[in-house]
């Protein structure tokens, strides 16, 4: 475990969160592992109507509906970058939010197609100069698997000083995971600059 990672864990930044579901009908918070909707409204219907409803619902059941978007946010708190710039640069303390959106579909072969978008909205303070920095960027990842999705990637973005000054490249190591229950894992395990 790196010092940065240790610091992050210490500060409670290592988070796997239950996703927020944002679908066509609005937004609801998941409290458990299931996102089935239980409706207590009692209906009296004939067999013919049930059959009609099943026929009408068939296209939805076979993947023609809009995929549900699952979201999660991870707060970044005082994560200090390791400066690996060949000339200049400095460690920067980062704060802000990492936002993740995930959709998936499952094809007829049982392969899950996960689409994950990560966006960062961070501010930073140079540990030597006291200069302010901002980070705003996004990246997309896709996993096609009959299992859950899991990968560790490097997320590169510009670490831009608010005042005129050199732009550093921030490299965040992200551990991403997703499953078909709508769980999204986002863990920032390392931060370096080049």
């Amino acid at each position, binding site marked *: 475990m790196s010092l940065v990672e240790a610091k992050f864990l210490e500060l409670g930044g290592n988070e796997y969160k239950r996703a927020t579901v944002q679908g066509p009908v609005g937004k609801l918070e998941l409290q458990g592992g299931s996102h089935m909707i239980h409706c207590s409204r009692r209906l009296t219907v004939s067999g013919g109507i049930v059959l009609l409803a099943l026929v009408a619902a068939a296209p939805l059941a076979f993947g023609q509906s809009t995929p549900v978007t699952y979201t999660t946010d991870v707060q970044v708190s005082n994560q200090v970058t390791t400066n690996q710039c060949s000339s200049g640069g400095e460690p920067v303390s980062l704060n802000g939010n990492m936002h993740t959106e995930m959709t998936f579909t499952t094809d007829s072969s049982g392969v899950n197609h996960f689409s994950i978008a990560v966006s960062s909205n961070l501010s930073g303070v140079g540990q030597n100069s006291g200069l302010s920095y901002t980070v705003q960027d996004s990246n*997309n990842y*896709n996993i096609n*698997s009959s*299992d859950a999705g*899991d990968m*560790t990637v*490097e997320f*590169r973005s510009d670490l831009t000083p608010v005042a005129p000054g050199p732009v550093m*490249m921030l490299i965040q190591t992200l551990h991403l995971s997703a499953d078909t229950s709508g769980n999204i894992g986002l863990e920032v395990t390392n931060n370096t600059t080049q």
Partner: protein
Amino acid sequence: MIHSNHRFTVSLAIVALAATPMMLAQNAPVSATSAQGPATNVNYTSNINVNGQGIANSCYTPTAAQLANPACGVDASGNPVQGEWVALAGSITTVYHNEIDPDGDHWHTKTTSHSELTGMGSCSGAKYVEKDDYNNDYKFKANDAGAIVKTDFLTLDKMKLVSQGPLPNMTVVFQTHTIVDEKGNVTIIKTFPNAQGQTITKCTK
């Protein structure tokens, strides 16, 4: 899925089988030759030669005089570009190895790609250099017999082309498509941005 009207793909396929180490250096896709599982904790290396590819520098506006040059304002295939075409050359070396979890239910393919590229603007003659390492860890499922379940991963990444003159640096988005099939074949496809669309470049001082 890769969406590109004029995509260039540099692909290499590596059969990661202990029984066929001679196939590891091939730069063209190869078909699977064995149903054996991939070797674990063995490093495999392959080189991709980048030549004849490039990116459109939309931050640069060619002058009328430069546009008189037929090579200015078009990509390597003669398609019009916004700005100027920056031809890339160099190599990307990928080293990877496979690991299996202690409980045997998941595999990991861990890759490190080292790229060293140069670029030259077709209008301005501006020169750029790029040098970086990219690390990824792909986790995928093993079936009941311990064999791999085919999985593929697409990641967007950025490379920084550092200007060797007065023009701004460029940050270029490219896509890496990593496919691991049931027999342990690993295919890596690098897709650079193209002239017709996609995220191209961002310019920084």
